[in-house]
């Protein structure tokens, strides 16, 4: 049984594809994030990441199908769901082994599976764009905590950088412990040992808040409560559109 492991980056996975073809060794299993069980009969082979090899696979994907499809694979990868690396491997293999493009042949299980995964991650990306809430800091910059189900923060950064171009901000993924910081010129990825943030509600400690911050949160909650038409209450729909797992970080659902 061939079991492969890699550093869990997208580049790493593409390198793995390259190496597997070079060695003519095809995986029965690829280990995903956080999977580190031991195996009875064979040890996993660890493939170290090499940008050049990854680059060649990437070019091949785009050549064989389209840039949109390359993007689709990358986004599906961000789901971190178990089995995703192997699914992507199978998909790329199917693509390279067939003459014509299979990009839109949704009757093939890997094609449909990748598309469904892509849709899931895209939905979560959209939700982070919607439900991220900035808090104004005592230094007049803006901070937000997020905790998305999939690793989608990198997919949202372009949007936030374009929209909030004239304010200094940081968005931090408390689940994965990294974030992005925009310094009015560019956005960079950062990690902190310790943040002055309460992980339960995502709020900065009070002393780090701008004096008006709490007032604005209250105003917003006030607006949220007022805008609801009680004759039309539909709690089920509300819960469906605004899933519970986002509530803790939304001022309108707290306080």
């Amino acid at each position: 049984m061939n079991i492969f492991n890699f550093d869990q980056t997208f580049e790493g996975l593409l390198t793995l594809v390259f190496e597997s073809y070079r060695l003519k060794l095809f995986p029965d299993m690829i280990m995903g994030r956080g999977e580190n069980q031991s195996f009875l009969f064979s040890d996993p082979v660890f493939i170290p990441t090499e940008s050049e090899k990854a680059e060649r696979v990437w070019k091949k994907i785009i050549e064989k199908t389209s840039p949109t499809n390359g993007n689709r694979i990358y986004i599906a990868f961000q789901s971190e769901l178990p089995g995703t690396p192997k699914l992507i491997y199978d998909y790329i293999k199917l693509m390279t082994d067939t003459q014509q493009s299979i990009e839109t042949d949704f009757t093939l299980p890997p094609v449909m599976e990748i598309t469904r995964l892509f849709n899931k991650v895209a939905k979560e990306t959209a939700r982070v764009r919607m439900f991220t809430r900035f808090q104004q800091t005592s230094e007049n910059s803006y901070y937000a905590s997020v905790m998305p189900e999939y690793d989608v923060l990198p997919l949202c950064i372009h949007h936030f950088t374009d929209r909030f171009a004239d304010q200094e901000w940081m968005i931090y993924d408390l689940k994965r412990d990294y974030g992005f910081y925009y310094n009015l010129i560019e956005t960079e990825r950062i990690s902190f040992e310790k943040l002055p943030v309460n992980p339960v509600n995502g709020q900065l400690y009070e002393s780090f808040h701008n004096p008006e911050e709490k007032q604005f949160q209250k105003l917003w909650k006030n607006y949220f409560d007022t805008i609801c038409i009680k004759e039309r209450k539909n709690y089920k729909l509300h819960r469906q559109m605004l899933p519970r797992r986002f509530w803790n970080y939304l001022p309108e659902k707290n306080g």
Partner: protein
Amino acid sequence: MVSEKTFDKLKILAESARYDVSCSSSGTSRSNSSGGIGNASAWGICHSYSEDGRCISLMKIMLSNNCIYDCAYCVNRRSNDHPRSSFTPQELSDLTIGFYRRNYIEGLFLSSGVLRNPEYTMEQMIAAIKDLRLRHRYNGYIHMKVIPGAGRELILEAGRWADRLSVNMEIPTENNLKFLAPEKNYESILKPIRMITENIRENREDRKKFRHVEKFTPAGQSTQLIIGASDDKDITVLSLANKLYRQRSLKRVYYSGYIPVNGYDSRLPALASPPLKREHRLYEADWLLRFYGFNVNDIVSEEYPDLDLSLDPKVSYALRNPWLYPVDINIADPMMLLRVPGIGLNSVKLIVAARQHSRINSDNLKKMGVVMKRARYFISCRELGFSQNVQDLKPEVVRRILLSGQKPSDAFQLKLFTSTVHPTPALT
């Protein structure tokens, strides 16, 4: 800056604005090139959902809820004894930018009661959005209501600063408007709608010739119709909407089930609850008109002037026209695929792309998001695993099956409406 007064004003003026249904912030795509704050996404983003399940995208607010008019269906009519307040243009723009910077909202939807006269009101509203654009260098989405009766100059000015303008028709027919809002007249509503359409067209031409010409309401115009405050039939409502889409190039027509806010006024019907089901069916029908290639008379007709409340309009259509089915998934024209209940725009895209490679079976369809529960009676494809379609079973049987498949919570409605169900042509 934020004071007790701000809280009071926000509460009063949001309360007064909440019955306006339009909230969509779509229609423009503009990246933030000026280095200020804000951009607009083509598909519009909801930022929250209120407990009635509606999307909160734009901050919907009135500049003032004082009004010199007395429209029967409106909370803000002058004869109502109800708290009144006004923002100054600057207060409003400061509040908007405070919300926007925190990513609470996608932009502003500004309306107002009529102060003194339409011109003065428009001037105040324009001052607020201009302040946002210039002082705050705000580049996000703005939807502004046009006050009926406002002249060309003010409409042109509003369209310079707003992404979308809307003139609410509210009541679909002239007679009923006269009855419920005697101080308004139909022409004073239609005129600005026409004017905006013309300006948008002219602007588009000008921009082809001279690149520096500023955009005029890039996200177009919309309007709202109140449903159930007057006795207008669905055929009247949908024909009007269709005309507005086709002739006036409106981007959206919103339907708002009348909420009995002024129960004391005997000109209005006594409703136990707002006609939400009807509103929902109208939105579905509207969707069919805009994206599915349906005509008004596919959906409603002299014979069936109102939508069937118990079934969605596409199912009703299919049951009234059983001879068009079953549709062969592997060869049918995309426009015909769109007429299959349970198949939506996205599924059609996937089907059309996939069938160029291989034949599609029912398992594929399920994965593509087709609602087989409904679609199965109207399609044929390889390995269906079920053979009976609407022709074999007869429409009335399919109808019964589809209705009984509904959730228990709908059972009450079911009982209510089965007595008024229209017989299908195949029956008669």
